[in-house]
Structure formats: C-alpha cells, structure tokens
C-alpha cells in the first residue's frame, strides 16, 4: 500500500484556563466578560494576548500510512485524548491541520448514545447510526453483532435490565463491526472480563491484519507492543518520540522515571506526579544499593544483591505500616512484588516521623533489562500513598550460572543443575544385570 492515511501538520490546541470548569453561570461570567474585555484592550497596547491559556497540543506533525497500526502513548495529560479528539473531529484544532484519506471511525468510548429505555435491538441501530454506520450496513451485520455480544436471548429487552457485562459486550460488538478505513481507538480494552478482553484483542488484530489503519491510545504497553508496529510518544502536548513501537515504549518508560528527579541511585519522590496520596505525599525518597552497599548507578548485575531504602514520613503515630514494591516490565506487566507483610520478623511498636524502611533482596534474579518500580505505603492496612513509576532499575547481564554463558529468554533465572543418571535398561539387560548381581552377591 504505502499511501498516506493521516497527515498531521503542526496540529495545536489551545484551551483557555478555567474552561475546564464544568459550566459557567451568567453571573460568574459577566464580571469575567468585562475583565476579559479590559484585558484585551490592555493586551492590544502591550502586544500580549491570551495569558490565561495553555496548549494541550502543539506542533504535532506525523504521517500514518494505510495499513499501519500506530500506538499513541504518554502519561495522563500529555495530549493523547486531545489528539484523538481532533483527528475524529470532535473538537477543532487551534492551529495546523490534518489531512485524512478515508472514512474515520472513532471509538473514544464504547456505548456512546445507548439509551437505557430502548431494547438491545433498538440500541444497535441507534448506536450504529451514531458511530457512522448506514442503516443498510447495520441490517446486514445485525446477526453478527448479536452473536459476538452473546446477547441473543435478550435482544428485545431494554438495556437498562442488562448486566453491566452484557451492556459492555453489546457496546463493543457494535463498535467492532464498524468498518472504517481508519479506526481511532481509546482504551476500550479496559472493559469486560478477561475472556472478553481476549476476544476484543483478537478482533483488533484481525482488523489490523485486514489492512486497516488503526490509531490506538493505551496505557497497556503489552497491548501496544503486541498490536502496533509504530508508536508516537507525547509529552506535554508535543511529540517526544516517534518510530518503532518497541523503541518508543523503551523511550517512554525511561522518560516516565526521569520525571522523578533521579541522581544516580537516589530517586526523589517528593515531586512524583503519577501518584495517589490518600493521606499525603508521605513517600519521600528511594535509594538503591547493590551488594556491599555500593550505590546502584548503572544497574544491578543479574543475581547480585539489591537493597532498596524507602524514606517516608509517618504524620501520626502508627503501629502498623507496610511498604510494597512492585517490579514491572517494560510492557507494564508485574514480574515480582516485594512486600513487608511477607517479613516474619516485622518491627513492632509505635512509630512517628521520618522513617527508613529497607528491603533487601539477596539475589536479584529478573532477566537483564529495564524494570520500573511502583511503590506504595499502607498505614493501618489502608493505602496511604502510592507512586507509579517511582524509579527504574536496570538489570545487567552476568555470568549467573558460572558457566561463561549469559542467560537468555524468559522473565527470570532460577538456580538449576544438570547431571547424568543411568538410563533405565531394557528388560533383557535388567535380567542379566540382576543375574550378574546375584552371582556376585553369592
């Protein structure tokens, strides 16, 4: 193919600050109107305008060829959704333009426009029309949609009586049967049970193999890796990286952690943004040391020791507190969880103020590669502070088995031994060996 499907040229979207507020009332906005007018007059004089605005997206240029499956990754607020909204024409760009060659179908959320009072059958037609299907198209695919959603018996029941699983399945089934040349997808895979998710993934790769163009936003790196050949990394509304999907993911994971000011082995957590702080920003710092308390600068060698020192604050005296550390692969898959709950000799007694909790792993046996570290603090068995992408650790190759061969393939290494045992002998030989034994025995 090789022809262009989407060509974005310097796309930008500016939002006025405060327009994110749910809505305005006239009374609130009238003074603002006069202030705004006054500011405009002043801005004319000083040559400055639009002070209270920010660019959700800026200078975004890229090309997508027909048949490409392109992932869009970036942290929350990086501009991913804004980009998809512009490409699917829900909102207009402030500057730049995008040329789109082919019919676009967007799946920014499944089940858009479902009406609870209408039956499954009626909603298939309504939702299909909203998604841009022609009536004839819906009629011809109707049976397929019902079968895919597994709702045959309830097709004439109002969807308000559906279970949430059925509802989501029906919604996705309609979306999956759209046949646009360019499909724009946002995180739809986070729905339904595991079996249905697998089915959706299957459908997605089927669609991509049919040669259709897909632009796909997801936080699930494993899915991006699996489905996409190319990826675009957005950061603060700009393109940070674009190219091969695996390289892009690598770049992104590195960037995620870089945002937490890392100086060698010390990760400053006080400024970490991707966190849930129920009690407060209690987690302060994470230090990584190797065997013999050598700071981990370049990485930890496979099989050597790793010591994680977690610095945090206890605002109030607490008897029970726990720290969990999750090691995740580049694809967002949890490989290993260390948790202080597993420690048989846990410290007891009430503590308050700054604390240092050390987790010592005598032999770190995850395969060489980059891992991100998620860290969380529980106080009295309730989550108090949690940070995704708190730090990263690079595992370096080593001669773990002492054989001069670096291990390859797999997620981790395990000590294992090989030796030779006498093969079991054939019947005749057994008898002969027995008779020899019997003779020698006498």
């Amino acid at each position: 193919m090789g022809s262009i499907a989407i060509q974005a040229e310097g796309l930008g979207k500016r939002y006025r600050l405060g327009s994110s507020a749910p809505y305005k009332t006239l009374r609130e906005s009238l003074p603002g109107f006069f202030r705004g007018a006054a500011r405009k007059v002043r801005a004319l004089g000083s040559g400055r305008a639009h002070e209270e605005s920010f660019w959700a997206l800026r200078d975004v240029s890229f090309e997508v060829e027909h048949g490409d499956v392109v992932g869009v990754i970036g942290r929350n607020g990086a501009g991913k959704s804004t980009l998809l909204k512009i490409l699917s024409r829900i909102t207009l760009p402030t500057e730049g333009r995008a040329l789109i060659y082919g019919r676009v179908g967007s799946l920014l959320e499944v089940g858009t426009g479902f009406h609870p009072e209408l039956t499954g059958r009626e909603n298939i037609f309504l939702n299909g029309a909203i998604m841009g299907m022609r009536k004839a198209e819906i009629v011809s695919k109707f049976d397929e949609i019902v079968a895919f959603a597994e709702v045959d018996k309830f097709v004439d029941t109002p969807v308000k009586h559906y279970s949430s699983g059925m509802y989501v399945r029906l919604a996705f089934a309609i979306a999956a049967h759209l046949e646009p040349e360019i499909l724009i997808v946002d995180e739809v895979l986070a729905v339904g049970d595991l079996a249905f998710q697998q089915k959706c993934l299957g459908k997605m790769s089927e669609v991509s193999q049919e040669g259709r163009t897909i632009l796909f936003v997801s936080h699930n790196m494993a899915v991006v890796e699996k489905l996409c050949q190319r990826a675009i990394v957005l950061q603060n509304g700009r393109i940070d990286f674009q190219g091969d999907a695996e390289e892009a993911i690598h770049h992104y994971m590195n960037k995620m952690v870089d945002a937490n000011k890392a100086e060698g082995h010390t990760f400053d957590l006080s400024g970490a943004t991707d966190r849930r702080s129920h009690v407060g920003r209690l987690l302060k710092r994470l230090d990584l040391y190797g065997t013999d308390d050598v700071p981990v600068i370049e990485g930890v060698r496979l099989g050597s020791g790793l010591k994680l020192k977690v610095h945090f604050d206890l605002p109030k005296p607490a008897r029970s507190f726990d720290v969990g550390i999750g090691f995740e692969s580049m694809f967002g898959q949890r490989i290993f969880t260390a948790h202080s709950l597993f420690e048989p000799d846990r410290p007891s007694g009430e503590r308050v103020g700054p604390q240092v909790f050390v987790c010592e792993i005598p032999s770190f046996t995850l395969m060489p590669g980059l891992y991100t570290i998620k860290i969380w603090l529980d106080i009295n068995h309730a989550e108090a502070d949690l940070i995704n992408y708190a730090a990263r650790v690079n595992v370096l190759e080593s001669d773990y088995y002492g054989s001069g061969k670096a291990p390859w393939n797999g997620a981790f290494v395990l000590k294992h031994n090989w030796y030779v045992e006498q093969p079991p002998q054939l019947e005749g030989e057994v008898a002969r060996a027995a008779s020899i034994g019997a003779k020698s025995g006498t």
Partner: protein
Amino acid sequence: MSTKTLSQIQVRSEPTTVVQPRKGLWDLELAHLWDYHELLFFLVWRDVKVRYKQTALGVAWAILQPLMATLIFSIFFGRLAKMPSDGIPYPVFAYVALVPWQYFANALTEASNSLVASQNLIKKVYFPRLIIPLGSVIAGLVDFCFAFIVLIGMMFHYGIKPSGSIFLFPVFLLLAVGTALAAGLWLSALNVQFRDVKHTIPFLIQFWFFATPIVYPSSIVPAKWRMWYGINPMAGVVEGFRYTVLGKAGRPGPMIWVSAAAVIVMLIGGVFYFRKMESTFADVV
C-alpha cells in the same frame, strides 16, 4: 474476508476530510448535513420512542395537555371574563391556538436542553451538532399530529367546516417549526455555556404565551399596531391557524409577512450563532 476489505480501501489522492481551524463566518457546511440524515432520523425516532416510556397514560399526554388548558381557559377567559373570540365557540378558538402553541413550547424546551442532554455524544462522536436541536424540533411533530386529530373531532362537534384556504395550513405549521428551531438554536447554544438558560426557559415561555393571541384574539390589538404585533412569529402562526383551519377569523393580513420575515431573520442569525459556537461545544459542555 480480507480480500474483500482490501479492495474496499481505495488509494485516494484527495483527502476525504481536512481537519483545521474554522475558516471564516460563512463556512456553514449546510450541504454536509445531508450526509447525516440517517442519524437525524434515528435521533428523532429515539426521542419519539422514549418520550412516553414508563408513563401510565402514554401518548394520551399529547392530547391531555392542550385539552386541559382549553378547559381551564374556556371557564375563566371564555365564560367568566367574556373574552371576545371572533365569533368562534371559545373552546375551539382556544384549542386551535393551543395545538401549535403546545408544539412550539415543548419543541423549544426540548431543543434548548438538547445539547446539554446529549453531552456524552458531543464529547465522543463527531457529527454536525445542528441535527441535535433539529431532531428535537422534528420529534415534537408527532405529538402535534395527535393533538391535531382531536382538533378535527372538535370541529365536527361544533359543526365548523374548514375554510377554502386549508391547504395553506402547512405553511403556518412550517412557520411554527421555524420559530421553534430558530429560538432553539440560540438557546441551546447559549445553554452549553450558561446553564442559566435552563432556568430562564419556563419564564420565557410563559411570557411568550401571553404575548401570543391564544386566549384573546389579535383583533383586540389596536389596528395600527397589529402589523408590528407579527414580530412575535407565534402571533402569525396562531392567526394563520385560525384563518386557514377554522376559516371564521378574518384574514390576518400583513402581520403574517412580518412574522415570516421575523422567523427568517431569527433562523439565519441562529444558524450563524450556532455554527460559530459549535466548535467549542465539546470543550465547554
């Protein structure tokens, strides 16, 4: 399967869509609306289907509303206040006005709230937003038809024959649709930004009701002002209904032209305002 789809994908040299900031005020893209006529149909169909779901009386509400109003007006304005009714039995006089009025009031209310009510659609899918208020205005016509059937029954009862100009009545219906759409476009777009609109509408409709010759004939307005009375397009609609359907009231005269002109001005302004605000709906709603 795959070969079928591959052949569907044509290599195009011209972009199907160009996404860019809106160029100029005149870029209305009204022709583009036709591409979405099926969606318009489905939205209307949904509104009609859902309107009387889970009500005990169902579609009877479409008739009950104007009938109850007629009953009350006949007692208070017809019997007690002895309001003139151009020689028409007062109940018919009021009901023939209430049929288009109820349509207008309901359509305007629905249309004004339509964008806010469809905000999850607006934030997730692209289509010309104009079809949302347009759908609300069209959906109201179903109720109108039911109420109109009752009007025919009432005329039989009072022995009133329709006038020779009955064929002009769709023109006045169109005028009512245009008025509801024009006001609905303005108010729905305003409502996206200022939820005050929602609270203003009941008051606005009440005010508009008394500014329209429903309980009284427009002949009580001094003759020299009557033409300008038509600036309220609903005055033209109601007089037009009385004239074409009942045939008893006098010819409305130049007032109709003023009403038609007022609707056209309001409608053109409404479309421009709506299109101007449209690009911000998804960001603001």
